[in-house]
């Protein structure tokens, strides 16, 4: 008799749970209702179990076992149904929440560093990695540092090629970053390894390739036994880091008053690898900097004995490097700061 009742309860619960899964009402409440109805303190199964006392000792374990089975079965069905319902709900949610992922993201737009800064940072990092310190000097400079101490006395023809802005007879806007060499050598004894990036001024009329304001990066190494081969080796390392492992450099003789011997330095064209193209005007080489061994007189001007020490120096134009890197044709763009230009970097 009780056995039949238990089996009936089990079957009935199973049907109700199955219906529950298909129902569309308040699932949480209905679910609880079903659970209480069968498993609650006043539930049907509990009701049946209360009558256990009426059974014979032989029947009790049999019915007890059956009752437990039915309870476990209901509990499992309930849990399964719950999981199924939650899964259905999740599926529904996912379906409802489909987004158009091709729409633009929220506005977190960062700005950017000026291209001159970006490339300068790269160059600085390369040299810092080689043990160079970054030095600086004034832009409004004494004639002595910009010219005299660099072996360019008054009336020297080299002054013609550097159209200088003067503030007074002895004060000018520096035409090169080389005066920083002198300032550093006056302050510091060898070993010296510095680069000095900065603004320089030349009285050039503005056009696509000339600006009265531009930037140079000066380099100076002074120590015992520094050679011209070291200069070439150092610049080759830098060129490879700046333009890739395949980059080669070429030295051509030149003249600067403050270096001897002097060289103009070309790097193999990074666009065509040296075969000749529009960027290198068919030459296969691109001039990137001027360099040389520090002139012994310049060392003497800074109280460094050229018999004991030697050094090399180099200077490169930042704008030219950046123009070639990004294929920018007009130097004026750097100082116009058109947002449409700035946003490209």
């Amino acid at each position: 008799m009780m056995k039949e009742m238990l089996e009936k309860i089990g079957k009935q619960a199973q049907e109700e749970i199955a219906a529950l899964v298909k129902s569309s009402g308040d699932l949480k409440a209905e679910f609880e209702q079903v659970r209480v109805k069968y498993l609650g303190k006043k539930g049907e199964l509990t009701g049946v179990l209360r009558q256990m006392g009426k059974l014979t000792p032989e029947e009790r374990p049999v019915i007890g076992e059956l009752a437990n089975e039915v309870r476990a079965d209901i509990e499992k069905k309930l849990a399964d149904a719950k999981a199924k319902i939650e899964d259905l709900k999740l599926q529904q949610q996912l379906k409802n929440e489909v987004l158009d992922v091709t729409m633009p993201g929220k506005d977190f737009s960062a700005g950017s560093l000026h291209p001159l800064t970006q490339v300068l940072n790269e160059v600085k990092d390369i040299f810092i990695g080689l043990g160079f310190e970054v030095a600086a000097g004034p832009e409004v400079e004494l004639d002595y540092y910009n010219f005299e101490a660099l072996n360019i006395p008054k009336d020297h023809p080299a002054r013609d090629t550097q159209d200088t802005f003067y503030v007074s007879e002895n004060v000018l806007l520096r035409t090169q970053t080389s005066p920083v060499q002198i300032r550093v050598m006056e302050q510091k004894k060898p070993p010296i390894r510095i680069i000095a990036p900065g603004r320089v001024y030349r009285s050039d009329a503005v056009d696509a390739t000339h600006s009265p304001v531009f930037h140079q990066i000066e380099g100076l190494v002074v120590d015992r036994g520094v050679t011209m081969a070291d200069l070439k080796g150092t610049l080759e390392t830098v060129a490879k880091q700046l333009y890739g492992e395949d980059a080669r450099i070429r030295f051509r003789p030149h003249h600067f008053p403050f270096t001897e011997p002097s060289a103009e330095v070309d790097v193999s064209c990074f666009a065509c690898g040296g075969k000749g193209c529009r960027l290198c005007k068919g030459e296969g080489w691109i001039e990137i900097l001027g360099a040389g061994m520090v002139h012994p007189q310049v060392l003497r001007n800074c109280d460094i004995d050229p018999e004991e020490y030697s050094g090399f120096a180099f200077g490169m134009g930042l704008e030219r490097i950046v123009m070639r890197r990004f294929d920018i044709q007009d130097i004026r763009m750097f100082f116009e700061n058109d947002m449409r230009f700035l946003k490209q970097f």
Partner: protein
Amino acid sequence: MKLPWSWIGEFVDIADVTPEEYAHALTMSGSMVEGIENAGSEIKNVVVGKIEQIERHPDADKLVVCQLNVGSETIQIVTGAPNVKVGQLVPVALHKSTLPGGVKITKGKLRGVLSMGMMCSHEELGMALEDYAGACEDGILILQEDIAPGTDIRDALNLNENVIDFDITSNRPDCFSVIGMARETAATFDKPIKLHKPEVKGGAGDVNAMAKVDVLDTEACPRYAARVVKNVKIAPSPKWMQDRLKNSGIRAINNIVDITNYILLEYGQPMHAFDLDRVAGHHITVRRAKDGEPMVTLDGAEHTLDSEVLVISDEEKAVALAGVMGGENSEITDDAVTVLFECANFEPTRVRRSAKKAGLRTESSARYEKGLDAEMIPDALNRACELVELLGAGEVCDGMIDVNHAQDTRKPVPFVPEKINQFLGTQISGTFMLEALKKLGFTIEGDTCLAPTYRIDIHEMADVAEEVVRIYGYDKLPTTPLRGETTMGGQSEMENKKDRIKAMLCGMGMYEIFTYTFTTPKMFDLLNVPQDSGLRNVVRITNPLGEETSVMRTTTIGAMMDTVARNLNLRNDQANLFEIGKVYLPQDGAQLPEERDKITMAFYGGSCDFYTVKGAVEALLAGLGAQDAVYTACTDNPMFHPGRCAAVEIGGKDCGVLGEVHPSVIRNYGLKTRVYLAELDLADILSQANGEKQFKPLPKYPAVTRDIAVLVDKTVPVYELEKVIRSVAGEVLEQVKLFDVYQGEQVPEDKKSVAYALVMRSHEGTLEEETINDIMKRTVEALDNTCGAKLR
């Protein structure tokens, strides 16, 4: 400097080298070649033709049909040119020929008659009318020389000359000449140089009977030599000489002047020819000019001289600016009969100053300024006289006046191959070095060497090392890595901070700009800067490109406004910009100004307002660890809106300003958009923001948040309320968050409602309700007492 190929070839045999190989080799040995020019390079298949027969065109009045012998055959050409005659030699562009500019000529029919090509004018050959005597304004060029038909026109008219264009550096004045470059050529290719010793027949009497020279300033004129030519016949110089001058960029004038220019190019030695009959007393004196002395130069320009200037004078007047230009009063004219050739050495600085004073820069002064070798004077002068005789331009007098005070200042320079190798990082053999130096004209004695007289640039070992390595080959220099004591690379703390600030500002959505650091004094007017403001005390450029760039800036706001204005004019409707750039502040008693870095930011367009720029400044200062920044209303900065400007103080130090740009400044820049801007002093900020981080233990006890809303006069800055709240609440107050400021309905006209959330926490234990209530009560009272703020 342009040098015709054939001229160099006169001194060194370069027939086995192509111009391209030559250009590369010379560039790599130190004489940079800028390019190779060839006037006739585009002309192809154009030959000399002889007109043998001319007939009328059967169907056209203005055309004629010519039969021309072009060497291999006779061809028929139809032309409309009015100047053709039988027997003339003319340029003929044959079928399938090319002319300058890529013009292609093929056979065709003119009014039904076959024409196998075209006869050419000077223009069609890319020549100017004055380039050739046989050129004709509106007709065919008629060849003046007897040249075999069929000859390539480039040979006939000397249009096939390769001209090498060198960029000579200022330390090598000796290379500004054919002979100088011939020496370099010989050394580069290891070939002999054929130098010519000029021979003058003379015979026209003694030069000393004709002229006298006194040099009063022997320092400014170390050597002055002269020879005299009698019975001069002024005429055009021959074509070969004209062609060489023309190809070198100098216009032919007449035989005498052309000879001086020929010497200028061949030797690099400037010369001048005086009409001796116009030199008073036939007496040349080299002296300083008198103050105020007048002089008219060859170009017709009038000058007033002073004692800085060296002149050549006769017994009455100055007749030339020494080393710069001759005077009009002694110039060679067509009726000159007696000519004095001056061949002198002037001191570079003196010529430079004279040239500067006169505002003239000539081929002559450019050479003297760099320093010339006085030793070449006799040869150069004799060569000029030899050319006079060769050209039949006159009769040369015997002897040479030579006032020579020039001193050989060369000193032997140490020559120790090991030292040179140590310096270069090479292993070049001593023998190679020795040979290289010999090729360059050095004499070697033991462990010293002596440069030739024309090498004024050789003073010490490094100079000799350069000579060695440029002949050895820069491309053969080994590459070695840096060695020696290791050094710590890096940059200054200031530079690191600058990089950090730039990164932060970019992170906040701003774009970095680079601006000119010089500006116009008018900027101060645009920015409303009062006349007596210290900002107007500027570093002034004495020789600016223009007023626009004539003073160094003392504020970065002008450049930022220029950038904003430019972007608005370009219709960029929104921008967030920043710059870290210098200002230049003159210092009393110091030669150099103080250069200070300023951080400048600007915002316009979009939804930006005053609080955008303020928020950016706050975020920046917080990021730098400047905790106690105070912003106070600043009503008297003329560049800013008086009601929307704040002075930024950190730790009591004035660090800059931020706000909305004054509407009248906006108008001055022709704009209609509000601009929000900040200018902060980098060093001042960094001096107040140490940026050092210190860890505080995380709180163990919960915080309590209480809101408070008060009604207060509109004019009371919220900062005043905050100060009161902080002073009352004391240590337990962790944070004061302003969350609402309201004006409008339910708030009286002259009041505003301000709401704060006070976050309180103790580190000793959970705050008692009673303590909190007490704090809130005292806060409300204090707000009322101090600021007249009433609890809502």
